[in-house]
């Protein structure tokens, strides 16, 4: 995902420290920095460095540090603090943090990392606050701290029956030295009052009543509306544009060329049109004529990539990705060899809220209101292209109307800042849906040529894959690499994984469960084919290949003084698959045209298995009847209602991969809106049953890992229903016709 925060976070957590200070208006300020630079900043009397404020009236304000994109983090992270603080959730207010890595450590929504990165630390922040409140109460009662306890929002002295509300203690807390985070006590999970209870989205009411502000709703004084027109061919440059004609349009305030650079993930060339209303600015595009220097990418196309892949498949892979044992020997001795080619297309993110950003550039300072998943990357782009210092950029993280990885890139952020600078006035840039679909960082397409060997007892003895992907030289296009541990590597002795690359002029990037969202389709469908060729039940065959419960070690070295990298636990993976099969009634008799399919996948530290029942009509038109999902994300489901929401959403999202594709022709994207890039709609949404298998492991994230098994479970169900194997996405229903 381009973000590998585990190591950094473990490093910085050791440097974590607490500070307190008097809050404006009285009360407790509880600051806690995860950042290495925090020490320097904490010395300054900034009232911003804070996670918790307690007002004299007892209301607790908790800062939500990470961007909210619909994953529920604005509710969930404060729950961790509130639990250990023993706050009354009904008297908690939540405040969105500014983007400030010096105060909060990395703030991003990606990799399903928020839970593993904050589970320990933020509970300790809450606990430290509770310890201070206990100390403050003990001081005012002149009794040992050990005699005091808390109920939500109140410290009590059980022996005497005396109580003091948190609000009454807040002022005194400002004089108490904060305890060491590493040593504060944590609750027995059996006593949790907030963690493990369903807490609805804290912004639910504002959303349902239309009062919630998203990025696109931001308004700043003196603001002008803008559109930005880029070359349809990725990275193309402006040669000339009929700016005078555009400026002559009624209501248009200004139009100018913005010069960009060469990096596809930076500021690119384009024409900005400004008006008092966004619609007027956008309408002026009708008369805009730009001569573009399209560049070399104009010679690329999806058809060309497929031809290149076919040619590469004729030869050996350009590079070895993994070589275990003697796959060639196993193929020579096999009772059966199964061969197949799989392919999947580029995909767009298509957040419901089109990309947008509001920017003000004044006196060398830049202020942006950005629906971003990854503010620091945006700060870097602004620093690079506007020539300002990082500390001169203020980023307000505004609720995102969807993320899915698209908003890890901040191209629209630097565009808005560059336009505002050039215009000399604040600007709100809003992209059209066409801009969004045609200027994305796409989930890369890919091609796989697979081969498996099965012995006389129907056991999988070898597997090889020639993966044709995108990149140049040593490098891969973003999100276009495959891990050498892709299952069944490490589970069986003979593996040959090789890779070849096609140069690509199209920008790619992480889409929800990057890599996994495509590889699960390929490997979990192919293993299904092998199961059938081996004459075995698809669930039983998968369990057989997994083998005994054990952890397949990670190939990555343990960092000095750090934790060993996570391995792949076959026991946990088998656990979810068995339970999903049981819940779905695996093996039951179904009429022809209806079938059950299964798939499992491990990604983002989460173990998932999915069973789908689907029915195909004789013409191949199909319907998903029902979906069963079992996940193992550790010992604790922090917010059960949102956990189920995330899994349901992953299923609906994953099902859209059956029909969506981005096609490149002449270096530009063909699709442009929801008619030719379809998403799942209400009439296609199946009932979804979600179960969590709780195991004695630290809790991990849920934004992504439920998605990868969805598409292979569907394709395997369609095979069971029709006998037709889907090896290429999107699904062409004509391929499923049966009689």
């Amino acid at each position, binding site marked *: 995902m381009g973000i590998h925060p585990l190591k950094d976070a473990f490093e910085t957590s050791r440097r974590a420290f607490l500070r307190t200070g008097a809050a404006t208006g009285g009360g407790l300020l509880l600051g806690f920095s995860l950042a290495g630079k925090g020490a320097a900043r904490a010395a300054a009397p900034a009232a911003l460095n804070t996670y918790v404020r307690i007002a004299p009236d007892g209301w607790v304000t908790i800062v939500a540090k990470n961007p909210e994109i619909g994953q529920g983090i604005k509710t969930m992270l404060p729950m961790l603090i509130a639990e250990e603080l023993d706050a009354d959730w009904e008297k908690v207010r939540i405040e969105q943090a500014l983007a400030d890595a010096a105060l909060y450590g990395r703030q991003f929504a990606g990799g399903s990392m928020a839970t593993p990165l904050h589970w320990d630390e933020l509970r300790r922040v809450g606990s430290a606050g509770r310890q201070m409140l206990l100390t403050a109460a003990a001081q005012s009662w002149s009794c040992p701290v050990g005699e005091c306890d808390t109920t939500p929002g109140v410290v009590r002295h059980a022996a005497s029956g005396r109580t003091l509300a948190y609000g009454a203690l807040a002022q005194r807390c400002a004089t108490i030295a904060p305890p060491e985070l590493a040593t504060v006590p944590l609750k027995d999970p059996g006593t949790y009052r907030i963690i493990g209870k369903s807490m609805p989205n804290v912004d*639910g009411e504002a959303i349902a009543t239309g009062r919630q502000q998203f990025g696109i709703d931001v308004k700043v004084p003196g603001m002008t509306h803008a559109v930005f027109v880029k070359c349809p061919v990725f990275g193309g440059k402006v040669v000339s544009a009929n700016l005078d004609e555009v400026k002559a349009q009624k209501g248009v305030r200004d139009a100018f060329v913005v010069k960009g650079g060469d990096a596809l993930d930076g500021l690119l060339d384009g024409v900005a049109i400004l008006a008092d*209303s966004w619609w007027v600015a956008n309408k002026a595009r009708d008369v805009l004529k730009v001569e573009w220097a399209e560049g070399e990418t104009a010679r690329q196309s999806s058809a060309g990539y497929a031809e290149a892949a076919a040619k590469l498949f004729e030869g050996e892979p350009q590079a070895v990705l993994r070589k275990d044992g003697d796959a060639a020997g196993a193929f020579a001795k096999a009772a059966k060899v199964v061969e197949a080619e799989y392919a999947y297309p580029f995909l767009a993110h298509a957040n419901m809220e089109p990309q947008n950003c509001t920017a003000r550039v004044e006196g060398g300072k830049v202020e942006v209101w950005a629906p971003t998943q990854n503010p620091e990357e945006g700060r870097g782009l602004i620093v690079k292209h506007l020539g300002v210092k990082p500390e001169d950029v203020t980023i307000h993280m505004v609720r995102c109307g*969807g993320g899915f990885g698209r908003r890890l890139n901040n191209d629209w952020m630097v565009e808005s800042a560059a336009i505002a600078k050039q215009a000399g006035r604040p600007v709100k840039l809003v992209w059209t849906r066409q801009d969004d679909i045609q200027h994305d960082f796409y989930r890369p397409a890919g091609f796989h040529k697979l081969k498996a060997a099965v012995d006389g007892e129907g056991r999988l003895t070898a597997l090889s894959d020639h993966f044709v992907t995108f990149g140049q030289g040593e490098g891969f296009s973003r999100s276009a690499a495959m891990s050498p541990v892709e299952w069944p590597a490490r589970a069986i002795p003979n593996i040959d994984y090789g890779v070849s690359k096609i140069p690509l002029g199209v920008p790619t990037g992480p889409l929800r469960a990057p890599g996994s969202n495509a590889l699960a389709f390929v490997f979990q469908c192919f293993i299904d084919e092998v199961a059938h060729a081996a004459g075995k039940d698809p669930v039983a065959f998968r369990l057989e290949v997994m083998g005994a419960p054990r952890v397949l070690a990670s190939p990555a070295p343990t960092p000095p003084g750090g934790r060993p990298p996570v391995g792949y636990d076959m026991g946990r993976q088998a656990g979810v698959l068995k339970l999903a099969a049981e819940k779905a009634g695996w093996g039951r008799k179904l009429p022809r045209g209806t079938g059950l399919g299964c798939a499992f996948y491990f990604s983002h530290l989460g173990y998932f298995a999915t069973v789908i029942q689907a029915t195909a009509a004789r013409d191949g038109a199909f319907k998903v009847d029902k979906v069963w999902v079992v996940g193992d994300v550790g010992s604790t489901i922090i917010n059960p209602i949102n956990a189920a929401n995330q899994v349901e959403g992953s299923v609906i999202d994953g099902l859209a991969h059956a029909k969506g594709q981005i096609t490149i022709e002449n270096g530009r994207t063909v699709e442009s809106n929801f008619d030719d890039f379809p998403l799942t709609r209400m009439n296609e949404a199946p009932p979804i049953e979600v179960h969590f298998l709780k195991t004695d492991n630290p809790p991990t994230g849920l934004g992504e890992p439920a998605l990868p098994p969805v598409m292979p479970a569907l394709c395997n169900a369609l095979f069971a229903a029709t006998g037709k194997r889907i090896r290429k996405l999107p699904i062409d229903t004509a391929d499923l016709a049966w009689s």
Partner: protein
Amino acid sequence: MAYTIQVNGQGRTVDVDGEMPLLWVLRDELDLKGTKFGCGAALCGACTVHVDGEPVRACVTPISAVTGKVTTIEAVGATSVGKKVQAAWIAHDVPQCGYCQAGQIMSASALLAATPKPTDADIDEAMSGNLCRCGTYTRIRAAIKQAAGLPVADSRET
């Protein structure tokens, strides 16, 4: 030219191009930002408002064609159906990112005003024009049924 329309019970006059869609009149001229822009082509439903109680895609409705009374998400709670729908949305924790939900609620309120006890097929028909990229459909269905006073199938363990 100047157009006067009834929005949320008030007469509002705007001086704009007659082709300007109602969506942009609401958002940029009247500062009613609850109605959302999603596609500009009536493909996603994020901009759904009521005109005389009927669901209308504001992104393709020119201001010059608006003659009826416009109700937006900001005021739909003043109707008994709208209020029930909003309450059910909150109770079922429907929103994830929340961006499409104003449009969903407007479509659902119009459905229930016309069809107080909708079947699953009625819900499919009324709601399939509203995309939700986060995939909140199972809860949207449940919330509509709750607002209608119909039994809600709930397979959740929690």
